[in-house]
């Protein structure tokens, strides 16, 4: 059936079987593969997306049911190619992940929490991520990441709704060519001998 979905700020039209989950639709029809299948029965949270800003299991909602909601996937979070949101950067800072499989769901859940709560307690963070199972980290560094992100967001001199997540964040960026790649032709090796690789 024909379904209109607002994904990361862009309306997309897709022909889906009524039985198709939003998870499968995002992955297969839109190639938004950052949303992961974990248990496909609503327990593990790896498939978490935001629906109108709130975390939802994309394995438990049909694609056609999501018509009319603003969907945010992990691809809609980073502000620009090569850049990270405050939350994403905090996860890197504390190493709040290992294999990365639960990470998109975890980060979207954290974004949803921090959009609502400026200064969450540890208990609130635990409660908010308790629906996202991580088998690698034991959660310690994830909780540290969210605390760090909350702290940075509080201190940032920017309106909160711009730096935290909201459905109005822009389109998922296209992969661009590396900015430092030559526009055309190949650099002549002998002309470019410079200590790019050297400095400690």
């Amino acid at each position, binding site marked *: 059936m024909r379904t209109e979905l607002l994904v990361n700020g862009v309306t997309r039209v897709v022909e889906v*079987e009524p039985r*198709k989950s939003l998870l499968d639709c995002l992955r297969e029809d839109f190639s*938004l*593969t*950052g*949303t*992961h299948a*974990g*248990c*496909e*029965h609503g*327990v*593990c949270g*790896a498939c978490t997306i935001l629906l109108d800003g709130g975390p939802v299991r994309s394995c438990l909602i049909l694609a056609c049911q999501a018509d009319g909601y603003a969907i945010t*996937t*992990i*691809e809609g*979070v980073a502000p620009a190619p090569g850049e*990270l949101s405050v939350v*994403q*950067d905090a*996860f*890197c*800072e504390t*190493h709040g*992940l*290992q*294999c*990365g*499989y639960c*990470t998109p769901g975890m*980060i979207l859940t954290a974004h949803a929490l921090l959009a609502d709560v400026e200064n969450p307690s*540890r208990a609130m*963070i*635990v*409660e908010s991520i*308790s*629906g*996202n*199972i*991580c*088998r*690698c*980290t*034991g*959660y*310690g*560094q*994830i*909780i540290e990441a969210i605390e760090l992100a909350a702290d940075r967001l509080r201190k940032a001199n920017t309106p909160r709704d711009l730096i935290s997540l909201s459905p109005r964040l822009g389109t998922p960026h296209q992969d661009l060519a590396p900015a430092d790649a030559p526009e055309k032709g190949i650099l002549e*090796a*002998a002309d470019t*001998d*410079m*200590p*790019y*690789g*050297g*400095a*400690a």
Partner: protein
Amino acid sequence: MTQAPFRFVSTNRRVREDRRFVVGKGHYIGDIALEDMLHVALVPSQYPAARIVAIDAAAARAMPGVHYVLTGEELAGAVDPLMNGLDTPNVQRFPLAVGQTRYAGEWVAAVVADNRALAEDAAEQVRVDYEPLPFLIDPEKALDPASPTVHAAHGSNVLLDKLFVWGDVDTHFAESPRHLSFRVTWGRSSTVPIETFGVLASWDPWREILDVWASIQMPKFPDQIARALRIPANCVRVHQDVDVGGSYGVKRGIKHTVLVAHLTRRLGRPVRLIEDRLENMRAGDAHGPDRLFDVEIAFNDDGIIKSMKMRALDNAGAYAGRAPFQLGKPIGAIVGPYKIESVQYRAQSVTTNKAVEEAVRGFGQSPTNYAIETALDKAAAACGLDRIEIRRRNFIRADEFPYLIPSGSRYDSGDYHAVVEKVLRHADYAALVAERDGLRKEGLLAGIGVSACLEPSGGNSSFEPLLNEKNQTSTWMESARINVDGLGFVSVMIHTTSAGQGHETLAATVVAEVLQIDPDRIRITRPDSLASLPSNSPVGSRMAIMLGGACFHAAQRLKDKLVKIGAYRLGIAPEAAIYEAGGVADAAGRRLDWPDLVNIAHRNFHLLPPDTEPGLEATYVMQVPTGTKLPENGRTQMYPCHSFEFHLVLIALDPVLGKPDIRRYVIGHDCGTVINPHIVKGMTLGGIAHGIGAALLEEFVYDDEGQMLTQSFMDYLLPSAHEVPPIEIVHHCTPSPFTVFGQKGSGESGYLGAPAAISSALNDAVAPLGLSFSKLPIRISAISDAIAAAHSKETKA
């Protein structure tokens, strides 16, 4: 921690892999799609054991979009049995059941369709006629010759039954004034990664090459595929740039891979199989040890344990898998951190009609540690000693390393007493005891748990020749290759997949340390298996030691070449040259910088020293340190390094509810020199969380009908953020003398001691009621039932 002169090693640098994962740009098996790709769903056996009378796939085949239905019979005619490792040729395992099924859920047929949903629809239309056969679930019954045999051709259910006697056990037992014996049981759980196993294979009949992408953590993976398919190994190309969504041992996927490899060859199109959660839990062949231990110890009134007899009976499930070897690795630390002088160890592995076991974090060490630590707690109780004091009395002392244990391994280094003291000081042990006693006064049950154990690390395979004399393997190498391109940029090639262990960060850090260049400028690549040097994948807590070691030595070779080139150009002897930050200088300060050296190597053959190859490239294939020979007389040097951990836990619980609440969790951890502190911390915390699961929640439970009851995450409970308390890590560093930076392994840390510590705490909590728990997991229901039974007994009395 000793102050080491490191620039990058042991510094809190970010983990480079994290950037791609936080934006959802990992490259997992589910993200890889080829044009024309077909999808597989499996038909599961309804019975724990049944003869397959007939398979009627006509209705399934007739469905639109369905391309093929493969049966075990056809597959067995086309491929060889999967590698086993033991000398049990009649325990044959194929990806699909052949002639009979041996556990509930076992794959009987594979349906191939245009998409997974169609394949699942069609799988439901495959009709299988079964004739149910007698089955068994209990490992002790499996030993009874009157019981049904899982593999009739094998003649019994015994896969392995080996008795080792190391030292004068009989004399030590006869001379010891005190003995005690007990049984503990380790329930069948696993690592259960959030990403299930998946594999995509594509056969090109003109190039004669099988391309494989898989969510894999399997040593000798391409070899095993080639052998099973009876094709040359250089026709198998495994792509190693696949991010693995968690493994912790289990992602061995050989049966899945042989299945899709056969299908792509049969159908001429790429074929992908990604398990759903049910397939993964029930028949992914990825369960962990399922083991009972009968332990007897001989000790004196001072609590000094002289000798131990241990029998470990493991329920391997329906096929051998890697399960039996998980009885072998613990031989390398069979006395734990203690000076037990002699050991008798009987390792038994039997088949039953349960799903197949696979390697799980620690490869059998965590269950064994649980048994040893239980013995220490019981001996302390028998002697009226404090549980920490008895450990102190039995610990190997820091001045006794390297220390040879009875089973033939020499422990590299450690300072167990120092770690314990640090933890007690950090936790304020007296205050912790007071807190426990205060909780008890409030009417709660409360207990303190301790465990002290080793993490053998370095991933040798010497348990294989030890348990199977026909296996003469004495190397388990790892490799690295470094290339500096014509513009001076450095690439390091590693030859395995990773499942979150941060190997790219490890390799970059080590190479940068040696070459004194910026790690962030180093590119790490993973060539496919045909372009790879020998590797054995990240098993056995080995990568810091083995990949780190290989990177170190390759970088040394590269540095030597830079020095040689620089010294020649400066007209001095290489020994007189000074290497610093990528440049080479002489004593007078004349210096050639990195670009100069790169330029000479890549463009100025006329300036190179005689007999020097152009370019800047170095490789190193590393043998496991201390891995010099085959086992002798049932003794072997198992792993080279031995990390130490000491757990201290306070648990409180309401006697009516029975729900354990971990109030305090402190771990002292010594894995030698830490290469990346973030990674080691994550491994330790994650390992403890996994151990909490194994101790309190997780079990694959089978009912009397042979059906697995815990088939979803609503029955098989994984620890959430609620169940894992804040954990305090107390660091200690005793460098290993056998590794390049003094590093040891840490990939299994936390998990190896957490179950023992939690069991210890719960037993301390219920001891006042005269109760004790001897089986993991200790579920809430088991706790509350035991307490209720104790109370009702009390009331009656």
